[in-house]
């Protein structure tokens, strides 16, 4: 093992105290990353311990397979999850995501992870009821491992480096799968250039989750109208200061997706509708100072007549289908002006 080895009493509480004292924990108990456990984690991939996967800012050090494995063990991942952690780290390293800003901004944004493809079933990733929440080991531990990697490898140290005013509960763990089988459209990873039989991970940077309930609408268009109206938010970074940049997520529950799919044969049509219907923010919603500032800088076409737009292009909406059946809640994921990144979960890095 090339990492420094610490000798600690085997008592689990002492290990936890020691990890907290060194700033290695998110505040919750960890699995002690013994040499044996780290070796078992690394054996799940066809990579050497010293292989460098990324250079995550702000710390920008060499992110080795061994460092990732230590954090995956601490988070409680099974070795079978490790190829997902490798791909998730590669995704975070892509400049389009802008992980430096996600990890240092005063905003509440965090990297959130969406898993697609056959690996969802192999790892038992929750794509249905409560998939953004608790109670599922794969979701919880993959998301937590990525969060611990942000803390221990990238250097997302609260207050000192991470200047987020509040952060958000998703900073502990934010990972779910797309319920592809319940989507009327192609899965997210296929839309983004991969094959259906590939497994992939997508990272985006939500500021939080906005629940959107619509029990009453009987048509897809009406449901989308409710979602669009719920996404018009003058307190969102997507509106200002980063208008025209980045993607906003929409997690459609399967019942909403089915209704919408009947009227909108492609995701592109859904996005065009959302673009149009989120372009109706009355300028009267803005206090005077902000209204003036918006009018002054609106060479980008954000203001049109008496209304302001939430997005500049249809491709600023990312659509994914997940959540339970029976309820009529979808979820909007306002972001930050950063783009989602999708990476292949390499079959060669899978457990044999």
């Amino acid at each position, binding site marked *: 093992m090339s990492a420094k080895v610490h000798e600690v009493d085997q008592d689990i509480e002492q290990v936890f105290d020691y990890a907290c004292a060194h700033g290695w924990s998110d505040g919750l108990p960890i699995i002690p990353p013994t040499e044996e456990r780290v070796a078992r984690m690394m054996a799940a991939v066809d990579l050497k311990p010293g292989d460098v996967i990324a*250079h995550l800012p*702000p710390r*920008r050090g060499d992110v080795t397979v061994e460092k990732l494995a230590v954090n995956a063990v601490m988070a409680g991942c099974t070795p079978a999850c490790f190829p997902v952690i490798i791909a998730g780290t590669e995704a975070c390293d892509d400049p389009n995501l802008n992980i430096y800003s996600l990890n240092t901004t005063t905003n509440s944004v965090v990297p959130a992870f969406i898993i697609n493809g056959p690996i969802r079933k192999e790892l038992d990733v929750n794509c249905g009821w409560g998939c953004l929440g608790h109670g599922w080991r794969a979701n919880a531990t993959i998301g937590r491992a990525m969060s611990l990697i942000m803390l221990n490898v990238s*250097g997302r*140290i609260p207050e*000192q*480096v991470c200047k987020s005013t509040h952060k958000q509960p998703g900073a502990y763990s934010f990972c779910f799968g797309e319920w592809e089988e319940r989507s009327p459209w192609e899965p997210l990873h296929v839309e983004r250039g991969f094959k259906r039989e590939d497994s992939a991970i997508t990272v985006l940077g939500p500021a939080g989750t906005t629940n959107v309930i619509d029990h009453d609408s009987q048509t897809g268009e009406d449901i989308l109208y409710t979602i669009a109206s719920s996404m018009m938010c003058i307190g969102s970074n997507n509106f200002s200061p980063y208008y025209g940049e980045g993607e906003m997520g929409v997690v459609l529950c399967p019942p909403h997706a089915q209704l919408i799919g009947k009227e909108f044969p492609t995701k592109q049509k859904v996005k065009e509708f959302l673009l149009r219907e989120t372009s109706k923010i009355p300028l009267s919603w803005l206090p005077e100072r902000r209204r003036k500032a918006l009018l002054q800088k609106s060479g980008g076409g954000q203001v049109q007549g008496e209304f302001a737009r939430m997005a500049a292009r249809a491709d600023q909406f990312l659509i994914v289908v997940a959540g339970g059946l029976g309820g009529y809640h979808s979820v909007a994921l306002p972001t930050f002006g950063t783009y989602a990144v999708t990476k292949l979960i390499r079959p060669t890095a899978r457990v044999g």
Partner: protein
Amino acid sequence: MQKRGVPTVTLVTEQFVSLAKAAAKSLGYPDIPLVVVPHPFETMPRDQVRKLAEQKYDEIVGKVVKATPRRAPGKPEAAR
């Protein structure tokens, strides 16, 4: 700029000093000269910015003159 041999001074608001130091260290410039200004700076009215510039002028010039340009040990280039 510093990489190109131009002496630089970085202005940072008081809330971001610890982040600026951490980022500078990870980029290979642990002793980068910093001039600290009040927070928030982004929304400060123009006349106050002018006053602040006058107040900080000597400190900025002093640190630019003292700043020795040197190249980083190569880490950031290799990183990307």
